[in-house]
């Protein structure tokens, strides 16, 4: 199998990762790399291990074997908040916003990642604290605007519409100022028009210089927006390549598309 040679440098490397929960092997010797500046799609049928793979990459689970490296730095010993701080941000498949906080505050929590002022600075409202607070706030507002919910900043996260909550998740993740943005099924529950708008947003994010990892169910969305695709099935990687290559790959068709298309026809 030939693959498109991606142009950018390797940013994140999943290196022979195996993850077992007791007797269940959720990930079996999975290897792939994400390159600087690309949009990589991670797809697979339900239960293929997409989200699990994602959780390993963001430090929620530790791999049983193998390692995940970000710019050469191993992640398996790092705490989750440290992983965020070195530049990997993520959204959640089942939206997990801070519900009783305003949309703006949600984004500011992400923005605080890069603030260094602590309790005493806050207590005495030092110039540095005021400056950082204003800066975090300004950036949060910008991000809300960027994802298209600039007017909603003052509303509680719980009160936003479903689509706006998904957008807020993206803004909150971007606020941590990541190099790599991981989106876990950001279009779940969207109608085709909303999905179209989301694809635009994802491209916009990439054009801003972020590298994007996209887990997605919807084949059309994945085909339309990604540069390369990795396909998982039963915890194993079965294919990797450009959208066209993956679409024509017999193993993928058998595992995923074939079944889908038969069902559809």
């Amino acid at each position, binding site marked *: 199998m030939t693959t498109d040679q991606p142009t950018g440098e390797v940013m994140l490397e999943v290196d022979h990762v195996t993850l077992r929960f007791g007797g269940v092997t959720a990930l079996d010797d999975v290897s792939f790399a994400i390159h600087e500046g690309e949009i990589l799609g991670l797809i697979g049928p339900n239960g293929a291990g997409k989200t699990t793979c994602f959780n390993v990459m963001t430090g929620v689970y530790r791999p049983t074997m193998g390692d995940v490296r970000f710019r050469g730095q191993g992640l398996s010993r790092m705490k989750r*908040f440290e992983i965020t701080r070195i530049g990997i941000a993520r959204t959640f498949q089942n939206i997990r916003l801070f519900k009783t906080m305003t949309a703006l505050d949600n984004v500011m929590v992400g923005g605080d*990642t890069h603030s260094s002022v602590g309790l005493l600075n806050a207590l005495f409202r030092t110039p540095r604290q005021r400056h950082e607070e204003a800066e975090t706030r300004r950036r949060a507002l910008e991000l809300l605007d960027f994802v298209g919910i600039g007017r909603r900043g003052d509303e509680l996260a719980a009160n936003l519409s479903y689509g706006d909550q998904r957008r807020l998740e993206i803004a909150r993740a971007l606020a941590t100022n990541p190099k790599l943005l991981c989106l876990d099924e950001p279009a779940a529950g969207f109608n085709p028009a909303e999905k179209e708008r989301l694809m635009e947003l994802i491209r916009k994010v990439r054009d801003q210089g972020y590298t994007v990892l996209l887990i997605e169910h919807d084949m059309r969305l994945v085909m339309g927006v990604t540069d390369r695709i990795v396909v998982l099935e039963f915890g194993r990687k079965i294919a990797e390549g450009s959208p066209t290559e993956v679409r024509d790959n017999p193993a993928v068709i058998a595992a995923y598309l074939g079944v889908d298309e038969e069902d559809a026809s």
Partner: protein
Amino acid sequence: MKRPTLPEITLPAPLRSKPVKIVGLAILVLFLYALPILDLPIITTPDSDFGGVLYTMATYVLIALGLNIVIGYAGLLDLGYVGFYAIGAYTTAVLGVQHGHWPFLATIPVAVAVTMLSGVILGAPTLRVRGDYLAIVTLGFGEIIRLAAKNSDWLGGARGIQNVPKPPSVHLFDVPHLRWENGTVLIDVSNKTQAFVFGFIDYVPYYWLALTVIFIVLIADVLIKSSRVGRAWEATREDEDAAEVMGVPTFRYKLLAFAMGAFVGGLAGSISAAGANFIYPDSYQIQVSVIFVAAVVIGGQGNRWGVMLGAALVVYLPERFRGLEEYRILMFGVALMLLATFRPQGLLPPRNARRARKLERDLEELEVGDEVQEVTS
């Protein structure tokens, strides 16, 4: 079934502008300082010394502010808060009389430092467990402190410690109290409070001291809550995993909340010991912790004004209705049940929680409206 709710409490529009707020606040502060002097009818407790009641209320308000950081902001259910209160009191007593002759003011920094340290020592291993487990561990902590004091002769044993040092007295002037007789106000020259003499009978100066400390803690509370520390606490409370993934070191922030809560609890303990003159282990029983938590929950956890109101009521109501004797506890229980039914989020829930509930109700009404439309069409 739709739950009946009390009306939301919001200030009317003209009272929300900033200058009006500041003037209103200043009047409120003056009123609070003057409260024990005014001896207002109805409000003043008929069966117990009003100055003493106010002083107890003030220490409870202080405790509620501290506990609110732990329960309300960071969402950590601490059922052993009385332990910190006891540690503060005992540190002051031990340094001041049991094993030293430190003046009261000098014991305070040590008391809060020791309490904070104990908060960190308790928190470091236990904050890794969540929810109910944390509640159980902290419950144990409260009892351990009490029993340790009770069984240690070095700490005075079951008899406790007497003659706890008092704050330094400076007699500047006398303040006469008011007397209300059949609608006329008289100045009662025979009943004066010596400002500022911390003695054994008149608790008004202690109340003033506690009130002043409350204002200082309150300002610190506002400043911290509205910074990234407050945001991190709130995010941790709402969704610990998501907060962690957003770069918040949640464990550190939980520990910080514990330490800050302990700080205020120790301070309150120290001040209460000075007023009480003698302290003994059994005054720091588990029930006291329960009352502390009740104050926070009744007032509305997460809202500093709410928890202060809750703490004041929890002390005041039983004292005000002391005439009802043991029935007052019954009435208190009934009041708690009514509150839990009609206003489960507390008397003054935080603004955000109020907004979320309002939206919920609006949606409910909309849905009801739709049903009606469907029926009629």
